[in-house]
């Protein structure tokens, strides 16, 4: 697979996060290659979401460095990293619930040029409406029919897809998905899987996911975390066969999805 040869887009070096005496992350190293799907798995409380917060800048690190696209972004707040080409979805759906679906995506697309948001004179029409991006993301999500409904009126599965779409609309280099299938019904899972798989051509995907079937199917690389540290990293088959991983976390879950 050519993925192994593609350049490293994102690198974490010894990233630590402490809350008082509690160590949430104890020095995590991670290398994410461009145009791959890189999954981070591990039991609850392993520090996956905390690592995400560090990588996307939602929270500050206690130690270590984060390099993205050749820049040291360790000290940059989240809105600055968006401009560098990072975008994220949330584990708990986080949308502008009273605003229409189209407006949600427009706001997400506009976030790449946030200085424009200070324009208090011109309405967002024409060139300022990001219409092409919004239309293409709507089509990708299959939400065209709901474009003018408030996001709060969508079903859970639709909201989860819009959640991914919010990240997509920023046309990012790297897209961070935090449990995109959480709480989803069986029917919606395949849609989501196809959606994520289709992202790889244009984006790099960093994925936290509990559904092993999806993780094993679509990942190029898997990092297994346990108690704030990296336990193992490798191709899906290698992870599936890894004894430490089996005993620490996956057990029979790993074969539950497939085979």
């Amino acid at each position, binding site marked *: 697979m050519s993925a192994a040869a593609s350049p490293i887009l994102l690198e974490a070096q010894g990233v630590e996060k402490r809350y008082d005496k509690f160590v949430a992350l104890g020095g995590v190293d991670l290398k994410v290659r461009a145009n791959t799907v890189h999954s981070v798995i591990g039991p609850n409380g392993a520090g996956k979401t905390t690592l995400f917060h560090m990588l996307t800048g939602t929270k500050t690190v206690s130690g270590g460095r984060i390099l993205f696209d050749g820049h040291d972004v360790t000290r940059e707040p989240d809105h600055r990293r968006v401009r560098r080409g990072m975008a994220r979805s949330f584990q708990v759906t986080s949308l502008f619930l009273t605003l229409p679906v189209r407006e949600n995506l427009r706001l997400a697309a506009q976030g790449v040029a946030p200085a424009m948001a200070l324009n208090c004179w011109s309405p967002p029409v024409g060139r300022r409406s990001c219409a092409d991006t919004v239309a293409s993301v709507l089509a990708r999500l299959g939400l065209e029919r709901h474009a003018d409904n408030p996001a709060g009126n969508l079903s859970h599965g639709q909201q989860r897809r819009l959640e991914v779409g919010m990240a997509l609309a*920023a046309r990012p280099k790297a897209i961070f998905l935090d449990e995109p299938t959480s709480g989803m019904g069986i029917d919606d899972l395949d849609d989501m899987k196809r959606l994520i798989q289709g992202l790889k051509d244009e984006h790099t995907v960093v994925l936290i996911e509990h559904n092993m079937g999806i993780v094993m199917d679509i990942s190029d690389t898997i990092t297994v975390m346990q108690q704030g540290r990296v336990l193992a990293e490798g191709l899906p088959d290698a992870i599936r066969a890894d004894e430490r991983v089996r005993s620490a976390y996956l057990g029979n879950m790993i074969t539950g999805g497939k085979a």
Partner: protein
Amino acid sequence: MTRHFHLLLALAIVVAMPLFMQSGSLASEVLIFGLAAMGCNLLLGYTGLLSFGQGIFFGLGSYTIGLLLTRWPLPMPLALAAAVGMGAAGAAIVGWVAIRQRGTYFVMLTLAFAQMFYFIAYSASGLTGGDNGLLDIPRPSLAVAGHTLWPLATPWQYYGFVAVLFLAAFWFLRRVCDSVFGRTLLAVRDNEERAAAVGYDLRLLKLQAFVISGAVTGLAGALHAMMTGIAPLSNAEYHTSEMILVMTVIGGTGNLLASVLGAAFYVLLGDWLSTLWPRWLLLLGVVLMVVSLGLQRGLWGLGESLWGLVRRKAPKNAPSAGLNATGDNA
């Protein structure tokens, strides 16, 4: 489309008041507090910021125009512009500090500023007149090179002047609310975490909202001082902040005209009730309770619901009108 509709409605209010009201001062007061409530609404309804600092910006406007018109022979429009600028500057300072926190602590910071400003205004009696306030503020006519364009001596002449500024501010604020900026504020109101994740600098957005709000509120404070001829300490008091907030909430948040409605309701009801009963503010408490408990979209929302009911009933009215008629006969 709705933009023009709302502007026309605002124009209708401005034209209608002289037809139905006796007192030009009272009508001016409605528009002045309408301005202040609209400024407050930009923060509360559009950005989700509950600011107790509005009294500061109102007071700054009053003091600025009072000082400039009594001590320096500055042309009145310039003095008014300075008052607007001071309101904006005050809001920039209060906003710059307060938006570092969210929720309760944000509210507490604005409250702290309101208290501080009151005591500064109280202590600096050389500038503000302290407890007495600034007295004998003139109301010069609008003149260019000695030619009087618009005399402001009578209450209704002054009302016309206020009305023009009110309509200009309304048009400007509508423009702001419909702009890229205004639409982004709604996103901040809905979900700050997502707005930041999407790439917006919340502090800059909130700060700009504060500055615009402060400018409009400063204008309102200046117009109020010119109307009454004094810049009293009470204009800078915490109670003024509270009053502006109450008007905004009663009218309904998230809609500029609703704020004008809230201000009109407060000013007119207060004027009427205070002749009947000096403790009328007690009744206002009841109104506020009703709005908070069951009418969270305010009087404007109530009006919208009623209008919706009327329109839905309208086609069915024809047969039921017959029933009513027979009922009347019996």
